[in-house]
């Protein structure tokens, strides 16, 4: 009935453009034609290594991470009927960070750090949502306050771990804390998860639209509210945990992207969720490109850039909601 394909095609095109841009810029710049040549299978071996083995995996990881965070944010906002909900603000990233840092402190690397971060994020989700739920329901103010307080607790534990860590481990830990894509690894799993969720969310979309009108109204219109709420909750936690375990704690993508898209595209979740996947990917690819070139050859942690975007957005939303 309504045109979903045009905005999604436009965002998809934008995504490809962002990816092409991201793989062609960096400490050694390539022209767009060189990039295209490599992507179509020609180009010099040096260019091929640079793009296919170094920049492309990192760019695709950035895309997957951004998409996962944006979709997770949008799902949490529907669940809580509150546009301020975001995995970072609710302290999930803090739990993931504690998990990751503990693994690093124990001398693990790679998959074990990611796995530990994943466990930490899931634990943090359970803690925040469980405490905020209590015996009643998820009231927005109660949830935000619980999230903020629990995040402060995670912050204290992070400081403790940093204080106890040997100096040589500190740089790696700090980069992880600020969000860093240079150790993201292979993007396949993240992209697969993102595609899977978009496919899964489409048949749920209309129920989510109804749920956004409040649990009573949704139940009266034929939605099984409890099972749906639990499904969104688990889905949002898994997406956040997957994103955090790829790239460390990157804040505010889940807040900024759904908010901007809602202003332009309205509130139909069947359109907003896949659009979040694409636009979140674009945003993080661009932010990561910026992070690589601002003080090149040094790199900025990408979380700094998203936070600089996200904090004003959050304050604006809070200010406007009064």
């Amino acid at each position, binding site marked *: *009935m*309504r045109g979903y394909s045009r905005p999604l095609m436009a965002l998809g095109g934008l995504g490809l453009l962002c990816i092409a841009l991201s793989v062609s810029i960096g400490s050694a710049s390539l022209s767009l034609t060189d990039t295209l040549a490599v992507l179509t299978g020609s180009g010099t071996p040096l260019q091929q290594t640079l793009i296919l083995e170094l920049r492309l995996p990192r760019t695709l990881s950035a895309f997957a991470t951004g998409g996962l965070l944006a979709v997770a944010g949008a799902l949490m906002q529907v669940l809580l*009927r*509150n*546009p301020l909900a975001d995995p970072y603000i609710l302290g999930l990233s803090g739990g993931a960070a504690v998990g990751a840092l503990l693994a690093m402190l124990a001398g693990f690397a790679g998959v074990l750090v990611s796995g530990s971060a994943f466990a930490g994020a899931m634990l943090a989700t359970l803690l925040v949502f469980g405490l905020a739920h209590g015996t009643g329901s998820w009231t927005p103010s109660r949830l935000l306050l619980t999230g903020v307080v629990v995040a402060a607790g995670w912050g204290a534990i992070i400081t403790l771990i940093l204080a106890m860590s040997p100096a040589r481990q500190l740089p790696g830990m700090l980069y992880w804390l600020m969000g860093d894509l240079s150790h993201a690894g292979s993007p396949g799993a993240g992209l697969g998860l993102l595609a899977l969720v978009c496919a899964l969310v*489409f*048949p*749920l979309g*209309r*129920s989510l*639209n*109804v749920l*956004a*009108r*409040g649990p*009573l*109204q949704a*139940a*009266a*219109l*034929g*939605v*099984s*509210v409890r099972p749906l709420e639990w499904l969104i909750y688990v889905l949002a936690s898994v997406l956040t945990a997957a994103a955090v375990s790829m790239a460390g704690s990157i804040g505010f993508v889940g807040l900024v992207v759904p908010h901007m898209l*809602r202003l332009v595209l*309205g*509130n*139909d979740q069947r359109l907003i969720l896949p659009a979040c996947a694409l636009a979140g990917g674009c945003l993080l690819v661009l932010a990561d490109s910026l992070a690589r070139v601002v003080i090149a050859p040094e790199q900025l942690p990408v979380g700094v850039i998203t936070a600089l975007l996200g904090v004003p957005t959050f304050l604006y939303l809070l200010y406007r909601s009064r």
Partner: protein
Amino acid sequence: MPGLHTDQLIIDIPGRADGTPLNLRIGAGEVWGVLGPNGVGKTTLLHTLSGLRAPRQGNVRLGDTALANLGRRAIARKLGVVFQDQQDGFPATALETALVGRHPWLSPWQMETAEDERIARDALGQLGVDHLSARLVNTLSGGERQRVAIATVLAQNPDTWLLDEPTNHLDLHHQVAVLQLLSEQARCGRSIFMCLHDLNLAARWCDHLLLLYPSGEACWGTTDTMLVPSALERLYGQKLITVEADGAPVFVPVKG
């Protein structure tokens, strides 16, 4: 048999004694009004009848099936609810809001069809809010929002309507228009069950009344048997003057 029935139903209001068990037979074509003072449990009763809240005792049947044995979707195809207040977490237009009423009739994979949109627009038209269809609901006045909420249930097209103070926020003309529309629905064989604050509207538009007393006592029956001035005075704890106008009793509170 069609309609909504309760067997020995006691609604669950924490800290209150059981009171009179309700054995209601809300049949097709009937318009029921629930009267009672603030906090007596009218909304709780409505939520219990719609299956959104478990009763303390007894059960609610929709036709021949207990509500507890029906899925939410099956219930929503037969029973529509207009709540006392609507919350909108995210802004939606009046048309989108009315279209949500089609939800129980669509499978998860289906998009709303042109036919659904026609039904929703038609419902908005019947409530006189079609000119607002592109407006965001949170920018409408209280009365306009109330009419959009009623249009949503009209688009849902249930056999049984449960309404929590449907005349809330409405001006005099629209109160009459909404009650007229509900009577029209009843004439087509639907059951209407609504909480009302206005005794006089209930006296004129309802054919059955349920009186809920603060003590938990309840009595119900046809409107002419229920409108006993002494019973109503006890119900609200308010002296009333009864006059007759246009063939129906009119109750006016005594001043002071």
